[in-house]
C-alpha cells in the first residue's frame, strides 16, 4: 500500500466544499489587498525616495532576511529564537497547505498527477507535524513572556491578544482535524507514526466513535478554514501586517554608507521649508517604517537616552510618526514626538544597527531637528546656540580664536600645508585635539607615532575649520555645509593624497558626508592607519603589561565597523583588554554624539557616568578610547562618579606613543 491520504476526506471535494472555500479565500484576499492599498495611500503622503536601486541585491537581502530570519536572530536571546522557530514552523505549514492546494485542485483534477504519496508523503507528514508542534511551543513561550513575565518596556496592545489567540486556534484546530481523521482512518497503521503529534490527538479522541469523530472533523475543518480567512483579513488591520511590511522593509532598506545623512539642497531658491514638521515633510519610507515596526523594543533597550531616563525612545518616535500619518495627518510631528525627546538623541546608531525590521530611526530625528533649527532657530539650550555662533565666527564650537588652531603643533615639527604641502598625509586634527588642553595630547601623540614610523604629517593649521559634524547632527545643515565647503575647497587646493583623522566624527563626516559635496580624497581613521604601519613593520611598539578595557566609540564602531584595528593596536602595545559587557556593536554611547557635545545634559541620569561605571566594573584600571568626545566625557564622568582612584582614561594614541620601541 502506498503512503498517502485522501485530501478533502470527510468534507468532500465537490462543488459544495470547493465553491465556498475558494469564495471565502478570494474575498479574504481581496479585503487584504484593498486595505493594504488604502495604507499605500497613507505612505504616499510622504516625499518621494528611490529605494529600488540595486534591485537584485535588494531582493536577495529580503529573501535572506525573511527566510533565514537573519536580523531577527542577530545577537538574539530567547524571544528572537522563538520568533525564528515559530516563523519556520508556520512557514512550513503554509508551504504544506500550498502543496495540498496544488495537488488537490490543480495537478490531480487536471493532469491526474499526485505527488503527496509514498516516501515524500511520509516526509511531508512528519515535517508538518513537527512544524505545527514547534509553532505551538514557540507561540506558548512568547505568550508566557508577553502575559506572565513581561519584560520592562514591552508594549502590549489588543493586537497582541488577537494574534496570539488566532494563531493558537489555527494551530490547535489543525491538530484536532488531523487527530479526528487519523482516529478514523489511520489507527494502528505504520503511517500514523509519521504524524506523531496528530497521533496523540487521535488517541485522545479515539473513544468518541466514528460518527462523532466525523462530525467533529467536519465542523473543525470549516472552523479552521474560517480562522485562516480571519487571519488573512486581519493581516492589514493588526500587527500581523509586519509579515508583509517588515519583509518589504528589507527590500527598501537603506543601503548605506552606514549613518550617512541625506544632504539638503542649499542652492534650491524655491525651497520654503527645511526639515520635517508635517507628515508630508517625511519620506514615504519614514511612514512605511512605522508600519514595519513590530514594537520589539530592541532599539529602546539599547538607547542610551532611554536607559538614562530621558524622554526618548527610538521605537516611540517611529510609532508616533505612524500615528500622525494614519490618525492625525494635520498634527505637528515635532510636538507629537516632543522636543526634549528629539534633542536627547546622541545619534549613537544602536537603534538602527539592531533593528530587525531595517527601520531608519536617526534620519527621522535629524529631519525634525533640522526643522527646529533651520525654520525656528531653536536649540536644546542657549549653550548650543552659542556654540553654533562661535563656530560661525571662529570655526570651532569652543569659541577659541581660530588663529591659534595650529598652536599645539608649533614645537612638534609639523607645519601647516600653507607652509609646506609636500607631505605623506594630511592630519585633519579637529576642534578638540586642536584646542582642548586634554585632547591636544592625542594630536601630539599621533604626530609622534607618525614621525617614528617615518611618515611626514601636515596639518591645515589656522585654515582648518570644524568639520561641521556636531552642527549637522544638531540639525544645522546650513552651517555644516558652509563649513564643509570651505574645508573641501581648502583641502582640494593642496594636492593631498590621504587624510587621516584622530576623531571618529571628523572621519565619518569627511569619509561619507563630504562625498555629497564633491570631496573624493581618501580618508582614514588613525587606528586603521596605524595598524597598517604596525603590520608593515614601520611602527614598532614595546609590549609591556597594560591591563585595560576599551570603549568602542559609536562613530568608529557602529558607524564604520572598525572594531579590530584598535584592538590589534592595543594588543600590540601589550594591552590585555577586559571587555565591558556592552562592547563592539553593543557598545554604550559616551553621551557626546549627535552634537550633544555642545549641549548640557539636563534630563535624567548622566550617560557618561553610567558608561564609566561599566568600565569600572571590569576591574581594569585604564579605559582606552579612540575619540576626543569620548575622552572628554569620560574624564568628566570619572570625576562625576568619584572613581579617580579606580580608573583613568586615555586615548589609544597616547598609550601607543608611550610605548614606542
Amino acid at each position, binding site marked *: 500500500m502506498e503512503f498517502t491520504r485522501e485530501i478533502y476526506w470527510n468534507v468532500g471535494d465537490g462543488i459544495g466544499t470547493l465553491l465556498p472555500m475558494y469564495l471565502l479565500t478570494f474575498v479574504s484576499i481581496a479585503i487584504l489587498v484593498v486595505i493594504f492599498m488604502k495604507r499605500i495611500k497613507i505612505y504616499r503622503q510622504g516625499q518621494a525616495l528611490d529605494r529600488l536601486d540595486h534591485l537584485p541585491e535588494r531582493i536577495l537581502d529580503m529573501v535572506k532576511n525573511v527566510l533565514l530570519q537573519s536580523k531577527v536572530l542577530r545577537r538574539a536571546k530567547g524571544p528572537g529564537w522563538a520568533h525564528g522557530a515559530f516563523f519556520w514552523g508556520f512557514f512550513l505549514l503554509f508551504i504544506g497547505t500550498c502543496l495540498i492546494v496544488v495537488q488537490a485542485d490543480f495537478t490531480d483534477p487536471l493532469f491526474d498527477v499526485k505527488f503527496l504519496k509514498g516516501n515524500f508523503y511520509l516526509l511531508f507528514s512528519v515535517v508538518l507535524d513537527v512544524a505545527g508542534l514547534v509553532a505551538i511551543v514557540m507561540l506558548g513561550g512568547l505568550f508566557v513572556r508577553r502575559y506572565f513575565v513581561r519584560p520592562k518596556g514591552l508594549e502590549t496592545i489588543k493586537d497582541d491578544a488577537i494574534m496570539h489567540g488566532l494563531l493558537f486556534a489555527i494551530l490547535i484546530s489543525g491538530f484536532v482535524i488531523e487527530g479526528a481523521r487519523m482516529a478514523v482512518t489511520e489507527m494502528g497503521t505504520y503511517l500514523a507514526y509519521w504524524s506523531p503529534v496528530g497521533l496523540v490527538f487521535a488517541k485522545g479522541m479515539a473513544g468518541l466513535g466514528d460518527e462523532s469523530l466525523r462530525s467533529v472533523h467536519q465542523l473543525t475543518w470549516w472552523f479552521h478554514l474560517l480562522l485562516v480567512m480571519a487571519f488573512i483579513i486581519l493581516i492589514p488591520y493588526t500587527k500581523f501586517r509586519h509579515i508583509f511590511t517588515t519583509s518589504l522593509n528589507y527590500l527598501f532598506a537603506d543601503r548605506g554608507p552606514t549613518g550617512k545623512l541625506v544632504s539638503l539642497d542649499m542652492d534650491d531658491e524655491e525651497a520654503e521649508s527645511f526639515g520635517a514638521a508635517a507628515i508630508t515633510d517625511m519620506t514615504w519610507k519614514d511612514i512605511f517604517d512605522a508600519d514595519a515596526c513590530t514594537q520589539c523594543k530592541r532599539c529602546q533597550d539599547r538607547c542610551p537616552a532611554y536607559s538614562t531616563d530621558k524622554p526618548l525612545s527610538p521605537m516611540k518616535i517611529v510609532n508616533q510618526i505612524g500615528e500622525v500619518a494614519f490618525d492625525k495627518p494635520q498634527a505637528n510631528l515635532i510636538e507629537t514626538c516632543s522636543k526634549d525627546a528629539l534633542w536627547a538623541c546622541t545619534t549613537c546608531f544602536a537603534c538602527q544597527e539592531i533593528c530587525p525590521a531595517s527601520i531608519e530611526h536617526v534620519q527621522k530625528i535629524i529631519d525634525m531637528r533640522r526643522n527646529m533649527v533651520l525654520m525656528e*532657530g531653536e536649540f536644546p539650550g542657549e549653550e548650543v546656540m552659542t556654540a553654533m555662533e562661535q563656530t560661525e565666527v571662529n570655526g570651532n564650537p569652543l*569659541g*577659541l580664536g581660530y588663529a591659534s588652531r595650529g598652536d599645539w603643533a608649533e614645537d612638534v615639527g609639523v607645519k601647516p600645508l600653507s607652509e609646506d604641502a609636500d607631505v605623506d598625509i594630511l592630519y585633519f586634527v579637529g576642534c578638540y585635539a586642536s584646542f582642548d588642553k586634554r585632547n591636544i595630547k592625542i594630536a601630539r601623540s599621533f604626530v609622534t607615532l607618525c614621525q617614528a614610523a617615518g611618515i611626514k604629517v601636515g596639518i591645515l593649521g589656522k585654515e582648518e575649520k570644524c568639520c561641521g559634524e556636531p552642527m549637522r547632527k544638531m540639525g544645522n545643515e546650513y552651517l555644516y555645509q558652509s563649513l564643509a565647503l570651505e574645508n573641501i575647497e581648502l583641502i582640494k587646493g593642496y594636492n593631498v593624497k590621504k587624510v587621516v583623522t584622530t576623531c571618529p566624527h571628523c572621519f565619518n563626516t569627511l569619509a561619507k558626508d563630504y562625498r555629497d559635496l564633491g570631496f573624493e580624497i581618501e580618508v582614514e581613521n588613525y587606528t586603521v592607519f596605524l595598524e597598517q604601519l604596525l603590520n608593515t613593520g614601520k611602527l614598532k611598539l614595546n609590549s609591556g603589561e597594560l591591563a585595560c578595557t576599551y570603549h568602542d566609540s559609536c562613530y568608529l564602531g557602529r558607524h564604520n565597523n572598525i572594531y579590530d584595528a584598535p584592538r590589534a593596536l592595543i594588543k600590540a602595545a601589550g594591552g590585555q583588554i577586559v571587555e565591558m559587557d556592552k562592547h563592539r556593536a553593543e557598545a554604550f554611547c559616551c553621551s557626546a554624539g549627535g552634537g550633544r557635545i555642545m549641549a548640557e545634559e539636563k534630563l535624567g541620569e548622566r550617560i557618561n557616568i553610567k558608561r564609566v561605571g561599566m568600565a569600572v566594573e571590569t576591574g581594569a584600571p585604564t579605559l582606552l578610547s579612540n575619540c576626543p568626545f569620548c575622552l572628554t566625557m569620560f574624564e568628566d564622568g570619572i570625576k562625576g562618579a568619584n572613581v579617580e582612584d579606580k580608573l583613568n582614561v586615555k586615548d589609544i594614541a597616547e598609550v601607543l606613543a608611550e610605548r614606542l620601541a
Partner: protein
Amino acid sequence: MKILVCIKQVPDMESKFKLNGEGNWYDGTDLAWRMNEYDEYAVEQAVQLKDQLGDADLTVLSIGPERVKEMMKKALAMGCDRGAHIADDDFFKKDPFEIASVVAEFAKDKGFDLIFTGMQSQDRGSGQVGVLVAEMLGLPSITTIVDFAFDNGQITAKRELEGGMKAIVKTRTPALMTCQLGLNTPRYPTLPNIMKAKKKELLSIPVSELLKVEAKQETAKMYFPEKKGGGLVLEGSVGDLVDQLIKILKDKTAVLA
C-alpha cells in the same frame, strides 16, 4: 514706524590681538569678526518691536570696510528690512564724534521714530556714539536699557544702574535707546530668513558723503598693559592643591604667621 539700528563689526574677543604699525589701533590680521554684542541686542529689540507692531521698517546701518556687509547680512537675516553700509576703510581712525556725525547726517532727513544702538562697542568701548547721535538729532536718549516696552508711542525702558539698582524711564518717540546685556536673547536666524536676506537692499554709501565734521579727539597710543606678576594656576589633586596653597601662604604672606 521707521526704525534705525546702528551696529558695528568688532573682532571676536578670543582673537590673538597685535598692535598695528602706527601703534594706535590693533592689527587686522588673524582676527575673526562678529557683530558687537550690544548691537545684537539692539537688532533683536528692533525686530521684536517690528513683530509687535506688525508694520515697521527697519534700517540697519554700519560703518566700516567691505567686510562689515557680512555682519549686516546677519542683521538682515534676523529681520531688518534694509541695510545702509557706510563704506569707510579708515573707520577706526575716526573718533566717536565723527562716527556719530556720520550716523546723524544719514538719519537726519529720514524721519526715524526710534533708533537702537549698542551701549558701547566691545573694541573701543567709548560708549559715546549713541548719545551723541541723539544729541545731534535733538532726540531724548535712554542708555543701558535692560527692558523695553512700547505702547502707542510711549516707551517704558528699564535702565541698569550701578550697585544693582534699576530705574524705569519713560519717553515718547522719536527717541534713541542704547542697549545693554540682559535686554533680550538675540535670535538665531532661520534659513528662509538667511535666504531672504541675500535679496534685501544693502546700499553702500561712501563715508565722504556724510562726514562733515572734524575729529575732536585722537587715539595717541594703544598698548598692552604691562605684565605684572600675573595669576598663578595651581594644578594637581585636591590634597596636593591644599599643600601648595598653604606653602604659598606661609612663604609669601603673613596670614598664617
